[in-house]
């Protein structure tokens, strides 16, 4: 075999292995079990929610549109399910226009239905209001000034879900899940003025930009993409789409690492020969 032919054959083998590593876990998804692990940045969020006493208020800002739905929806579903299971009171809001209808309301009503929670008592959904940073500043002073009514035009002041809550300072946790700039805005305005613990969720590609905020303790935890959602699904023991797609992911990652190791072994053997 010439060098070029060897090269081609190696590529075929690699492509074949990748294809198998993808297809087998997809077809036999049910039979594969991943070890239950979680990284500290994700577990921090879980632990915090777990530590909150029943009836505490938290706020979730859902700031992505349908184009990032596949990556971020499982994360929000898992978080919300956890909060409902702990009997926390959850306020849902958005500072992104495109997230208001489909995404925010849809996720909240779906999960609430499953968890048998009541709108206005256990959770509330706020309408979209323009002026992202101004809204968050206002939330840190007076939540009823920012949102006098919920998305169904019901008076927020009268809702049991807001009992004992005046601003986000009274909230025990804020979580922003975003595919854009919303996390930055929450860090700068929400965390600075509201002083509550802040968690962030974002797409996998964006996550690296937020790691410095973990180091500086401005973020309590960070969830990046489906991987983090899968970890959370494991933590709350409610496995869903994210866990399913993590199986082929794990196999492919392992395959690539093994390939790198084999490549280096070949390299060192060849070097020894010459």
């Amino acid at each position, binding site marked *: 075999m010439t060098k070029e032919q060897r090269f081609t054959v190696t590529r075929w083998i690699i492509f074949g292995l*990748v294809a198998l590593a993808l297809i087998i876990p997809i077809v036999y998804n049910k039979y594969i079990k*991943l070890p239950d692990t979680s990284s*500290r940045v994700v577990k921090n969020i879980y632990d915090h929610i777990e530590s909150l006493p029943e009836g505490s208020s938290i706020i979730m800002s859902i700031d992505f549109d349908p184009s990032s739905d596949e990556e971020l929806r499982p994360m929000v579903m898992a978080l919300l399910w956890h909060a409902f299971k702990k009997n926390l009171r959850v306020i849902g809001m958005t500072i992104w226009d495109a997230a208001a209808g489909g995404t925010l309301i849809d996720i909240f009503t779906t999960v609430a239905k499953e968890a048998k929670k009541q709108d206005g008592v256990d959770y509330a959904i706020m309408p979209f209001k323009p002026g992202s940073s101004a809204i968050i500043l206002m939330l840190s002073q007076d939540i009823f000034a920012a949102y006098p009514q919920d998305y169904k035009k019901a008076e927020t002041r009268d809702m049991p879900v807001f009992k004992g809550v005046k601003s986000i300072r009274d909230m025990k946790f804020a979580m922003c899940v975003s595919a854009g700039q919303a996390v930055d805005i929450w860090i700068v305005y929400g965390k600075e003025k509201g002083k509550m613990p802040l968690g962030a969720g974002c797409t996998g590609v964006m996550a690296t930009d937020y790691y*410095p905020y973990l180091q500086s303790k401005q973020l309590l935890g960070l969830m990046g993409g489906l991987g983090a959602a899968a970890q959370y699904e494991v933590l709350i023991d409610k496995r869903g789409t994210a866990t399913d797609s*993590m199986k082929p992911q*794990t196999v492919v990652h392992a395959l*690539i690492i093994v390939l*790198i190791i084999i*490549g*280096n072994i070949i390299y060192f053997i060849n070097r020894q020969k010459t």
Partner: protein
Amino acid sequence: MIKRQIPLMIAFVMGILFIIQFFVPHQLSQDLLTGVNKWLMIIGGISLLLGINSLVHFHYVQIKRETPGWGFSLVMFLCFGLALVAGFLPSIVMWFVEPAKAGAEPVKWLSFIPLIPPFEPGSTLFWIFRNGISPFMATMFSMIGFFIASAAFRAFRARSLEATLLLIAAVIIMLGQTPIGQMLWQGIPDIMVWIFSVPNTAAKRAIWFGITMGTIAFSLRIIFGIERAYLGGTDQK
């Protein structure tokens, strides 16, 4: 003179104008920026004729000379024509139908064409996008999943200290991304966070600073006519 000096002057004037524009909050200045951005899009739209001419010419020559594989060029033309017809036909039909609409009977034999403007759900062009273009797009994009494995296999060899660092960082992150990392060692996710917040941040910032300087210097070379490759002239006169 008119071939060289005037373009250089245009570049200079536009360049200085838009440096100043950045610092002027006045409505006129904002209108100028949005206006010029729109103009650039319009120029691009008109210039597409040049591109299409180039594409059509290339494949026309293939077919005319009957070079091996000229049949593929024919397929290219068919698909190109299909998309064009799907895009333009409803509008053309509407153009003819609309003036007659007042009281006139709708043209029956044309009714099989959905009279929906292109780029709206339900139109034929949209169907072509969903079923003709997007499977190709998704497949090409997903092919990177295969290539990334073969690139990793070939490139990540511990040839030198630099290459070893590249390799180790990549492997740590890949481990940290999946449950395997934690199975091996609890600390891997923490190392991952550290790599992204310290060395990665430092390197990226410095590269950004460099790009800033490169951009300023390069822009100045264009504005002051030192860089004039686009005029053809590469020599400094």
